[in-house]
């Protein structure tokens, strides 16, 4: 029963790694709605639910260490708190790391918003032998303090009870020392005299403190001219404490958090060697670190592809078999014209299907990545890989997205989220398309089968290496041009190892994968229809060459002449490959060897179809399990595509086929990657840069391969 009154707006704030997100998941679970903060790609989680008859709207603020205006997370957090004025703040505090967490708490108190503290990870603190005097904390801070453990789901009910029982009065103001308090009072009187409205618009004490600190964002939004505040107010403070007031205030807050933590916290004398330390000794070992990391990554890939590929095949089979048959039957049933049937089957189902096939891979890989993140290993991987990545001007954290790129570039783009610095995010995302993804493999396989049957493995491997080498080169070039300036300093917390809870794993996996399904699905859908029309217009086109796509192919073909594949067929295939690179193969099939009309005599019934779907799903499960357990499996017979092979032999040479493969590897990222980049970086600028540089790079590299090869007499 939902209550009629306005929901109580509760903002949840806290340090990164304080278990904030686990806490919210535990409280809100499936009622959690994930979106983005306006204009940025930082996730915004919200939940609306009832607790004991009171409706509560919970807003998760990004994790941050303070409310200074330096990072996106901090700015979002403070803007939300200051302008939206939630009814209450839940400050999630890591009980095992009290002093540092209290630094943020003290700044939150400055806002004067009613607050409750969730003393989280309390179970671990107890296990470590910490004794925390909660009563004293409550008295000193003037707020309720509730011990919680989000992973064990303890204390959550008490927390919510405290939320609805809260009298919503401003917490106590902490005394910052006589010198500062005097200035604050003076400043307050001055503002009250000059611009009374400001004190109503902003939390009073917070505004005055920010003005004293000289926070430019605040000066700008309040329209107070820098330097216009009467100097005599600060003279004493400056003379007594030097000119760095921001530093002075930081010191005061640090002092308060250190003092409070000293007073309420009692630690056991000797620190026991923790599990984290033991794992780190192996994982971060100078010699073992990289092998351990390599093994972890190998396992991740192995598990991902073994587990997911049977399901991908199942989706493929289901879409191309039963679903297409059903849509044909349904559309024929309502007397739809043939072109509609072709649009739905060859355009929409084939196009969207080619992407849906990747869903199992993406969700599985996201599951494992979420696990690595949640357990704390991801930060270690970044630590271990830092030196290698430094060569291309990135630090260790960028390694993970790049590695994922070999599976599929799309999750890699989303994985750049784990990087803090916008510059690193963008540079990493720009280099990701150079990692040869799974979708390019079918193209290589088709060509090496025809032109390099004896050393196919080496040729495919050389393409992967080519991509990586070019990533090093491009990384270096970008560093010198678009991303000039000193590389940002590296600072990262390595959180203690923790076992992520299964529900939180599933929830985060879904959040990550959902973006792929929804956004990619819409773009692909639109593009599939477009391509179909391009291949089938003008109306009643007899030969594919005369279709718009064929004409477009013919028009751009001269550009590819120096690269060794200046035919309209190859060009058209490349144009469609923009949707997803493996479509190159499909288009080539369409163009070179038009399919024979499928016999319509032996149509299976709907019942048989459903049976087939279920049986093949069972087969997929069986196959996933058996590859996992290394049980032998029957190899599937490859489809014969002799017509296509003959046609390609006539048009390509070994050299031009290699040049073509290199081009397919490098030329513009597929549409899904572009969409992902746009979503992540909010705008078309970086996708445009990626498209431009990769296409130019592809052309230049293919030119060097083809013309160089010809000079060598190949």
């Amino acid at each position: 029963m939902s209550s009629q009154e306005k929901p109580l707006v509760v903002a949840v704030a806290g340090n990164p790694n304080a278990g904030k997100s686990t806490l919210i998941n535990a409280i809100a679970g499936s009622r959690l709605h994930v979106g983005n903060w306006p204009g940025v790609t930082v996730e915004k989680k919200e939940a609306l639910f009832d607790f004991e008859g009171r409706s509560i709207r919970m807003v998760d603020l990004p994790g941050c260490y303070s409310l200074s205006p330096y990072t996106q997370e901090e700015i979002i957090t403070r803007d939300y708190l200051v302008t939206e004025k939630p009814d209450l703040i839940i400050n999630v505090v890591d009980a095992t790391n009290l002093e540092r967490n209290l630094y943020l708490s003290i700044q939150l108190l400055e806002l004067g918003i009613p607050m409750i503290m969730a003393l989280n990870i309390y179970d671990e603190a107890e296990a470590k032998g910490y004794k925390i005097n909660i009563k004293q904390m409550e008295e000193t801070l003037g707020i309720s303090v509730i011990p919680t453990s989000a992973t064990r789901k303890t204390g959550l009910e008490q927390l919510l009870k405290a939320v609805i029982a809260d009298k919503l009065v401003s917490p106590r103001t902490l005394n910052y020392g006589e010198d500062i308090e005097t200035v604050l009072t003076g400043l307050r009187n001055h503002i009250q005299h000059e611009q009374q409205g400001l004190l109503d618009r902003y939390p009073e004490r917070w505004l005055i403190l920010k003005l004293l600190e000289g926070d430019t964002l605040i000066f700008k939004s309040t329209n107070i001219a820098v330097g216009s505040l009467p100097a005599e107010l600060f003279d004493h403070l400056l003379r007594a404490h030097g000119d760095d007031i921001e530093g002075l205030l930081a010191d005061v807050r640090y002092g308060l958090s250190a003092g409070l933590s000293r007073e309420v916290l009692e630690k056991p004398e000797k620190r026991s060697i923790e599990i984290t330390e033991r794992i780190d000794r192996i994982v971060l070992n100078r010699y073992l670190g990289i092998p351990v990391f390599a093994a972890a990554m190998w396992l991740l890939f192995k598990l991902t592809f073994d587990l997911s590929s049977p399901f991908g095949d199942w989706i493929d089979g289901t879409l191309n078999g039963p679903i297409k048959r059903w849509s044909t039957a349904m559309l024929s049933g309502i007397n739809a014209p043939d072109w509609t049937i072709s649009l739905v089957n060859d355009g929409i189902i084939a196009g969207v299907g080619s992407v849906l096939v990747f869903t199992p891979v993406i969700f599985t890989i996201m599951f494992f990545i979420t696990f690595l993140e949640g357990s704390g290993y991801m930060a270690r991987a970044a630590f271990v890989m830092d030196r290698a990545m430094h060569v291309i001007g990135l630090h260790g954290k960028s390694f993970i997205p790049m590695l994922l790129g070999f599976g599929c570039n799309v999750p890699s783009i989303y994985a750049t989220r784990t990087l803090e610095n916008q510059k690193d995010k963008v540079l990493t995302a720009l280099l990701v398309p150079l990692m040869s993804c799974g979708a390019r493999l079918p193209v290589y396989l088709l060509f090496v089968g025809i032109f390099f049957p004896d050393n196919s493995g080496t040729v495919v491997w050389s393409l992967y290496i080519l991509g990586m080498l070019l990533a090093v080169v491009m990384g270096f070039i970008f560093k010198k041009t678009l991303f000039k300036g000193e590389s940002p300093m590296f600072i990262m917390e390595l959180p203690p190892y923790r076992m992520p809870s299964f529900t939180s794993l599933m929830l985060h996996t879904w959040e990550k994968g959902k973006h792929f399904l929804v956004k990619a699905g819409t773009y692909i859908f639109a593009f599939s229809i477009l391509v179909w029309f391009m291949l089938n217009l003008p109306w009643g086109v007899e030969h594919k060459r005369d279709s718009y796509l064929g004409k477009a192919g013919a028009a751009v073909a001269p550009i590819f002449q120096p690269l060794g594949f200046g035919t309209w067929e190859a060009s058209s295939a490349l144009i469609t490959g923009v949707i997803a690179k493996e479509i190159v193969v499909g288009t080539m099939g369409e163009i070179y060897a038009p399919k024979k009309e499928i016999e319509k005599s032996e149509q299976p019934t709907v019942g048989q179809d459903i049976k087939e779907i279920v049986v093949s799903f069972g087969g997929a499960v069986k196959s996933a399990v058996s590859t996992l357990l290394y049980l032998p499996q029957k190899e599937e017979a490859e489809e014969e595509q002799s017509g296509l092979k003959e046609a390609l032999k006539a048009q390509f040479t070994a050299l031009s086929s290699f040049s073509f493969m290199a081009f397919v590897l490098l030329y513009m990222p597929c549409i899904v990657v572009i969409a992902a980049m746009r979503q992540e970086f909010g705008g078309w600028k970086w996708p445009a840069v990626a498209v431009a540089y990769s296409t130019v790079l592809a052309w230049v590299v293919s030119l060097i391969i083809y013309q160089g090869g010809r000079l060598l007499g190949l």
Partner: protein
Amino acid sequence: MPLELLAQGERGEITEIRHYGSGGGCHCHNHGVGQGLGRGRGLGCKRVPGDEHTTRAEEMGLRVGKQVEVLKNEGRLLLLMVDETRIAIDRRMARGIMVKGVTI
């Protein structure tokens, strides 16, 4: 001495955090913070408020008066233990953090 010079397993107490970059020059990143009063600007580089990385380090717990233990010091990164937090920082940053040795 700079934190950079502490060997693995050694401890030190932070005495000063210099807000210098790698070039030895003074990085007066003008984030504009600290100039609100029209003061505190250009008055030497003892502490340049607004250097976001050092500020971040301080927020994470690396502050004057704190004891740090160097868990790892090899290659480009140092792994530190401050209170209950493990923090990885690069060598450049460790160069700007002054410590005095502490015997365990």
